[in-house]
Every structure is written in C-alpha cells, then in structure tokens.
C-alpha cells in the first residue's frame, strides 16, 4: 500500500513475515539515462540509511533501519501523527529543538527539518526522512535546518524551538549568528515558501 510519494521516492506500508514495515523505494526515473540514474539511486539509498543509523547510534529517535536493499530502505513503522497535522505546543517545540541540537552535535544536518518530517506519539518525537541529510559541521548548513523550521511554524513557537536548540547545542550561538547572516542575504528573502 502506497502511503506517501516524494520527488524521488515512494513510501509503502508492507507486511513482511507478520511485521509491519515502512519501505522507502527510489524508483527509476525515465528522464535520466540509466548510467546516471542507477548509481545515483544506489548512492542516495545507502547514504540515507547510513545517516539514519548514525543518528540512531547518537541517541536520536529515528525509525530503526531493518534492512537496506539496492534502492530501498526497510524500516520500523512509527505510530502517531506528523507534527504538522496536530496542535503544536511549547513542549513539542522544545523537544524537537533539543533533538536537532543533538543531531547537529553528532555531525548530521537534516536538510528538511520541518513539522512535516517529525512524528509525534504521546511524548515521543521521531525524526523521519533523511533523504536530504548530510554529514556536516558547517554552521551554514546547520542554520538552514533552523531556517526551514522558522518558516514552517509561528513566531512564538519558533522562539521556543530556537531557545531550546541554543541551550542544548555545543555551538548554538554560532549557528544562531549564521542564521541571521543567511536570512539577511537578499536571495533568501524572496524565496520564502509559504
């Protein structure tokens, strides 16, 4: 059963040996020649799965990777709802702020850190979709994670998020400074995605 479709992958819900699993498959793109398409899909699949495992080892709540195929990642099914679909709160924002700080301190930038990629179940938050993630300690790339969240939630909610992030992060102040710098650049001003 298809439960989601992104630009480069489809998400299925599958029952394998009595176990409910989420499968993310990078489909063949007709518009790319196979010589470009195949190695790219293989590389990105491995990279995404690898980063999920690194994040998990660093103590960040991500779906457990069960198996990795050539173009697919089999992972644990997470219960609950997406943060974008429920009432946001100070508690959630502080939690995802701390979670991002931990992720950045372990060397991972997410690349698409928005309420559409955070699952909430009770008091538990789980970060999903590492498709655009990377290993990086660059404050610029870290700032982008904050910027995306800033554009996706209200100003008040973002303040809780940022406060929690800066307090929990090893170099939160530097990232906050970089964020101000990034925002000042003209090209970003007209690029806000509403």
């Amino acid at each position, binding site marked *: 059963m298809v439960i989601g479709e992104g630009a*480069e992958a489809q998400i299925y819900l599958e029952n394998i040996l009595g176990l409910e699993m989420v499968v993310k498959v990078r489909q063949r793109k007709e518009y*790319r*020649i196979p010589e470009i398409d195949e190695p790219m899909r293989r590389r990105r699949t491995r990279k995404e799965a690898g980063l999920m495992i690194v994040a998990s080892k660093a103590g960040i709540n991500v779906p457990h990777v069960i198996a990795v195929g050539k173009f697919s990642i089999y992972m644990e099914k997470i219960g609950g709802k997406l943060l974008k679909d429920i009432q946001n709160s100070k508690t959630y924002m502080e939690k995802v702020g701390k979670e991002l700080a931990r992720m950045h301190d372990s060397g991972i930038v997410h*690349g698409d850190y928005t309420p559409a990629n955070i699952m909430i179940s009770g008091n538990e938050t789980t970060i999903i979709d590492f498709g655009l993630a990377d290993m990086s300690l660059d404050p610029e790339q870290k700032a982008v994670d904050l910027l995306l969240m800033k554009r996706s939630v209200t100003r008040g909610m973002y303040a809780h998020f940022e406060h929690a992030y800066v307090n929990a992060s090893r170099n939160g102040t530097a990232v906050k400074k970089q964020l101000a710098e990034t925002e000042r650049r003209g090209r970003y001003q007209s690029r806000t995605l509403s």
Partner: protein
Amino acid sequence: MRVIGIESSAHTFGVGIVDDGKILAKEKEMFHIGTTGMIPAEVAEFHTDNAAEVINRALKSANLNYSDIEGIGYTRGPGLGPCLQVGYLSAKTLAKKLKVPIAPVNHGVAHIESTRLISGMKDPIALYVSGGNSQILKMDNKPFKHYRVLGETFDIGVGNMLDSFARELKLTPSWGSSIEKKASGGKYVEMPYSVKGMDFSFTGLLTKAVSMIPDVPAKDLCFSIQEAAFSMLAETTERALLLTNSDEICVCGGVAQNSRLKQILNLVAKEHGARFGFIEGALNADNGAMIAMVAERMLLAGHSTSIDKCDIEQRFRVDSAEVF
C-alpha cells in the same frame, strides 16, 4: 495596441512588434561571439551600428509606419551595461519623437511570460535556462505579482557552461547547439552531479569535463556533460513541481532550443501528469517580440514610466520585477 519592443541585453539586437499579443514582426542582428566570447564595448558598438536598420526592417516587415506605433518597450536589465544602453537610448529616442508611452521590461520576465502566453499556460513552473541564467520560478502574488525564484544556479548559467566547454573543444561556435550536435551517439562517462534542494551548480561539471579532454573522445564528453547538466535541471524542476502542487511545466531561454532538454522535461511532466509547454526555436533566443509582448501588457495595465525616469539596471533581478 501596437507596441515595439527593443532587446539588447547581450549579443542580440532584436526588435519586435506586437498588437494584441500577436507578433507582427521580429527582426534581429546578432554579434558573432567567435572564439573570444563577448567584449561588452565591441558588442555595444555592433548594436549602435545596427539599431536603426533593424528597427526599420521590423516596421517594414509588419507593414507599419513610425506613426502607427502606440507604445514602446525596452530591456531594462539584467544584461551587459554598454549593450543595454544602446537599446535604452533607441527606445527613449523613439518615445520622445513619437510621443508614445514607454515601459522598461525585465529580460527574464519577458522570456517566461512570452513562453507562458504563447503556449497557453496559466501558472506553470518555469525553467529559465540561458547563457547567463538558470532558474526555476513560479508566479507569486505577494507582496506584488512577480516570479519567485524557487531554485537557481549557485555559479554560472547552463548555457555559459555548454558554450565554455565548446570553446575548450575548439568546436565552431553555433549558438550553443554545437555540444548537442557533437553529443549524438556518445557514451556516458561519469560526471559530477551537484544538486542541493532546488539549487544546482555547473562549474564542477565544467572543470571535470575540461580535465578529461585529451583522454576521452569529444563526443562522449559532450554527451555526458549534457546528460548530467540536464538531469540536474530535471530533478530540481520535478522537486519544484511536487512542492508547489503545480500541473504545468514550461521551459524558456536560449537553452530551451535544445531538443534533448525538451525531451527530458517532457518525461518529467508525463510522470506527474503535468502539461509541458515550450515555444518554437527562434523565439527562445533573445528577441524583441518578447519585450514588446510584456511591454504591451504593462502599458495596457496603465503602467508606463515617464521618459526621464527610465534607466537601465545591469543586475535587475527577475523576482524584483512586477508582472502585469
């Protein structure tokens, strides 16, 4: 409204005449870049020498006299300063002499809008690819009606990249199509691929391809550089399409004449049930008709600029121009 449009942002001095969105004339003279590229002062001199003749030719082919013209449009930017100056002065002179309103037009907006209007699209994702520009855009109504840049090149335009590579290979420059011609039957060799979200960059690709020149056959390099560059454009366009829930894609700018690029984008559109729009070859290159089309809409919306307030702006960003 019979409007004459003058384009001179780069190597082309183009004059077009439209009436009610219909193109009555499109004439141009192109400075031949040869093997040295463009030297702004030389190109401007070329435009100065040709301006009067091209304007007269356009009027003649539309079967009109100077007195029939009801409005004027010119390229305000972006472009090379000395070149823009020639078109701007020609337009200003005409406006003064004929006592008709004048409208300064953004070059990028003209490419996108002419493609959108001629191909009959409503609100497409526009891939604007030329020598100097490579951007993915969509109309946005806030704070005013303009094209918002969703993604763009971090360094050079894809056309510039292809032309530079053609020069390295010492291919006869034929307005960007030399790579496409040489690429047929080539084999793929691995190339860098740099996409970040909806942005992309081309200099790494160029450097890598140039470094392989004596060792790998030229046609393989041409094929590979083209496939890699267009795959990057296709992937980012696809991402923009899904992110904005659009159902139309259009391609414009000089590189839109490349048939492999159109084929690739058509596949992207097909995969997501979107419509794909483009216009016939020569209208994708810089021309005066697209300037006239946008100027007519501006003037009909009552948006003329007084002659002494007209100017040029070399870095006139596409997203800072109001669209009517």
